[in-house]
């Protein structure tokens, strides 16, 4: 009899509707106004690659060891260098990184022995051309420069 009354009064459905109603919070806005306010990403976020330079001398930290290129599963990094006859070291000439094929696994970053190559918190990587996705050394050092919108 009790179950019949429960069936008749739709208690099970009203219980669910009450749960739905409880979760309505019009005061809490979760929508992010994206191009105006960029969402914060985690400190360890794996985004756009960057080739670090020395903060004072602005010389590259890269020692042209080619380990990142060997670690990359997609083989999208190309490093060229020439031997400096005075210091007997390799000087970096070009560094190419094809972002369009990158899956941001972070293996290149792990392989780098001097923390020169790093995946940063930048995530706006769209370009108008395919060629724009192939980043050269200058682009890697400066990083992407997305448009900052204002009202």
């Amino acid at each position, binding site marked *: 009899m009790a179950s019949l009354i429960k069936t008749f009064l739709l208690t099970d459905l009203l219980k669910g509707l*009450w*749960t739905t109603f*409880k979760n309505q919070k019009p005061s809490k806005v979760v929508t992010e106004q994206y191009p105006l306010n960029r969402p914060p990403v985690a400190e*360890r976020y794996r985004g756009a690659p960057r080739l670090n330079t020395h903060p004072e001398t602005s010389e590259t930290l890269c020692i042209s060891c080619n380990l990142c290129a060997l*670690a990359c*599963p997609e083989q999208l990094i190309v490093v060229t260098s020439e031997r400096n006859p005075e210091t007997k070291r390799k000087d970096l000439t070009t560094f190419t990184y094809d972002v369009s094929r990158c899956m*941001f696994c972070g293996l290149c970053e792990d392989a780098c022995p001097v923390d020169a190559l790093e*995946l940063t918190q930048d995530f706006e990587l769209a370009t108008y051309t395919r060629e724009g996705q192939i980043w050269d050394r200058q682009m890697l050092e400066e990083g992407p420069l997305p448009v900052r919108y204002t009202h």
Partner: protein
Amino acid sequence: MAETTLAPPEVQAETLLDSNELVLNMGPQHPSTHGVLRVILKLDGETVLGTDCVIGYLHRGVEKIAENRTFQQFAPYVDRMDYVAAVSNGLGYCMAVEKLLDVEIPPRAQAVRVILTELNRLASHLLWLGTHALDIGAITPVFLCFREREEVLKIFENYCGARLTTHAFRIGGLQYETYDTFEKECLEFCDLMEQKLKEYHDLLTGNRIWVRRTKGVGILNAADCKDYGVTGPLIRAAGVEWDLRKAQPYCGYENYDFDIPTAETGDTFDRYMVRMEEMVQSCRIIRQAVDALPEGPIKGKVGKVIKPPPGEAYVSIEAPKGELGYYVVSDGSLNPYRVRVRPPSFVNLGALDKMCRGSLVADVVAIIGTIDIVLGEVDR
């Protein structure tokens, strides 16, 4: 033109399609097939006479890619198979290579691995619950489930820098040390989850529409489960207490106290209840692992170059969807000679025909949802 002769009338009647029968394509763009699954249904009115699955729309040849990558380089690719439970995939692959290398994993790394895979099980089950309820017609759960899943993804992002294709584990242990508030966030999430599970039960478990749509639908009994090789929540819902975390413990699961939830009939409602209970058990495991998180190194003794001795290894783990196995063959070089994956979704999908026969078209949607397939893993 050759002279044609008509078959005798009694043969004609058997071979020609009955005028009541209808062949219907469901998918690959159907939103309830969870991706790009195409199911060819043979119908008599509303009743399903038989089904035929067409898969392969998402085939990327992952196993072949493995042969052209080194052991470390292949690790990010396994995340792209079952992308809902990427951490479990990474664990399975790393464990298979570690078995080949015969290295010991430090206890801290083991514990962090357990925490992350259990969090991933919660995320996977939450996604399953949301989409399964959405398929059947309940709109609210999907929003609530995604809200809670977001918390797990935030922990993943803080831990390893990616939300979905995490690449959290490396061969030999971990790459990243836990961050400062990791333990606190995990425990907070467990509290939140236990509170929210009550809400899900309020929304669905007693709901008469939900019960009518799931009770007695897609029954797969224990014998059929064993015949089809079905594992995971599907076999547990049929009453078989089979969980690889208990049956052949790995990663230190023998140290944690948890139960294997089972049910009896093996219908869609039972599978729902089993997965809901599994979420509670996952929270239990996370709490125990966080409380007893040991200090120490996070990486075992593996070199920069991973070159396992010739041999083969098969490791299977309990992924959210069932038994996930990795079979890795090494010929002593830098690249694996062969990698074969035993995907739970693919094997479980094989039982779809058995579960669908005799049911209604609308129930096919419920049954596909209850198997919990990810097409990235089915097609590989």
